[in-house]
């Protein structure tokens, strides 16, 4: 409670400090515009619809990437889980996966999918999917044996046991994978737009930067920040509920 309050106070104080530094000219307008101006600029671009197409593309791509990563990661996780020898072979690779800077492969994706959404989604999925695979394996590992036995006692079929016992038992762990997939999809899509796109919020930010259009640039950054914060808050609420149920 007071911890939360303190956090809000710190954030607000930081914003006010930046606002002050901008207003009195310690931070020049060429470097950064005042937070209040960012809000005004964001209002303007949203009202004008100038970047609506970019915004739509970016968030659509993030959504597609998230859904694909979660589905593919879950299915791959279940398959790997059911093949222990395969799992033993590739688990070390999964563990060191995030040591690889996925973005260096962008030329391959451009060759394969061309410049545009397909390449961007491919990179984002590549980045996100392994977190879901790992979370799925972890979730399946964590299902207490006694719950599966309970399913047997109620003479449930394999499919019913999977749907009514194993899936809900693994859900809190799977959700960790969903959260990471969302985060990696944001990173993957927006960062890819900087390097291999002619549209999207990432592209628009880079474009504005090159033209010294600080108003647009900071407005778009603020937009991304706001969306990420809202999405994360929402995911955290669900996560906390799921974790509260987890007892073992």
């Amino acid at each position, binding site marked *: 409670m007071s911890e939360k309050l303190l956090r809000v106070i710190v954030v607000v104080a930081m914003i006010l400090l930046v606002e002050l530094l901008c207003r009195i000219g310690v931070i020049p307008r060429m470097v950064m515009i005042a937070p209040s101006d960012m809000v005004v600029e964001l209002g303007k671009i949203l009202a004008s619809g100038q970047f609506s197409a970019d915004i739509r593309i970016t968030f659509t791509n993030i959504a597609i990437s998230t859904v694909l990563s979660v589905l593919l990661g879950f299915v791959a996780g279940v398959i790997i889980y059911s093949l222990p020898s395969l799992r033993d072979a590739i688990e070390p690779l999964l563990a060191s996966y995030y040591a690889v800077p996925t973005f260096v492969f962008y030329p391959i994706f451009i060759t394969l999918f061309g410049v545009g959404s397909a390449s961007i989604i491919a990179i984002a999925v590549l980045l996100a999917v392994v977190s879901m695979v790992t979370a799925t394996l972890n979730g399946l590992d964590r299902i*207490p044996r006694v719950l599966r*036995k309970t399913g047997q*006692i109620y003479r449930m079929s394999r499919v019913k046991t999977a749907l009514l016992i194993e899936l809900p*038992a693994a859900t809190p762990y799977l959700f960790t994978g969903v959260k990471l997939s969302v985060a990696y999809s944001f990173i993957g899509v927006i960062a890819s737009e900087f390097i291999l796109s002619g549209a999207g919020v990432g592209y628009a930010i880079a474009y504005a930067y090159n033209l010294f259009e600080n108003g647009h640039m900071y407005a778009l950054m603020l937009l991304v920040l706001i969306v990420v914060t809202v999405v994360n808050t929402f995911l955290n609420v669900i996560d906390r509920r799921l974790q509260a149920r987890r007892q073992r």
Partner: protein
Amino acid sequence: MSAALGAKVVPLAPQTATAPAHARLRGVTRVFDLPKSTLHALGPVDLDLAKGEFFSVVGPSGCGKSTLLDILAGLSAPQSGTAEFEGKPIQGVPDGVGVVFQEDASFPWLNVRDNVAFGLRRAGMDPAEINRRVDYAVGFMGLKDFAASYPAQLSGGMRQRVCIARTLVMQPRLILLDEPFGALDQQTRLLMGDELLRLWRETSATILLITHALDEAAMLSDRVGVMSTRPGTFIDFVETGWERDRDSRVVSTPHFGDITARLWEKLRIEALKIMSAGKG
């Protein structure tokens, strides 16, 4: 005091009962395959459970009690020997068997009511009948005020009661309980024992109770089986001779002392074996 009140000495299994046994094990063994070796966990075990009997198993930790329960429940097959329930070989979980496991098996994503109703819903029972049975079991187990709570909000002992209620609503003919009161304090354990006796009288189910508490075994059972250290076999069967209408007040009778003394005499030797093995 008549001789009938003394702990009866019964010859070791197999016992020849006149009525066919409700559940029967003959020469049952269980061996686990470990990565580099095998582990002989149980047997050979012979056991006849009479219909409506309250039978308890006591034995040192790790002697194969839960393994024995798994075989009776049809959750694992014996390496050798035969297991029968109601005259039929046990292959998979038989209809009419209910189990309360040693570990907490409550479903954390369901509230108490939904946990208790789980098996009935799987069986596709009429919702009105489900409600009736769940209400009864939830009340019986003293969970009425927690019907909407989730397991994470309950103590370990209460979660175990949820599991007991979830088993009872199915009205099993054979109830297998694996240290169900392990997480409870002594007083609650005795009272829960009374509830279990009440339930047993009301349902006429056959009960097999695994416990490490000798007093619990002595007070609740018609008959107590004492197991040796691993691989567990029955080294003694003690008939208590209690009336069907008993309750926890029997603990203050001399006969209760006789029974626990007899159980301890047998178990002490087994416990000493483990201690000396541990030292050596």
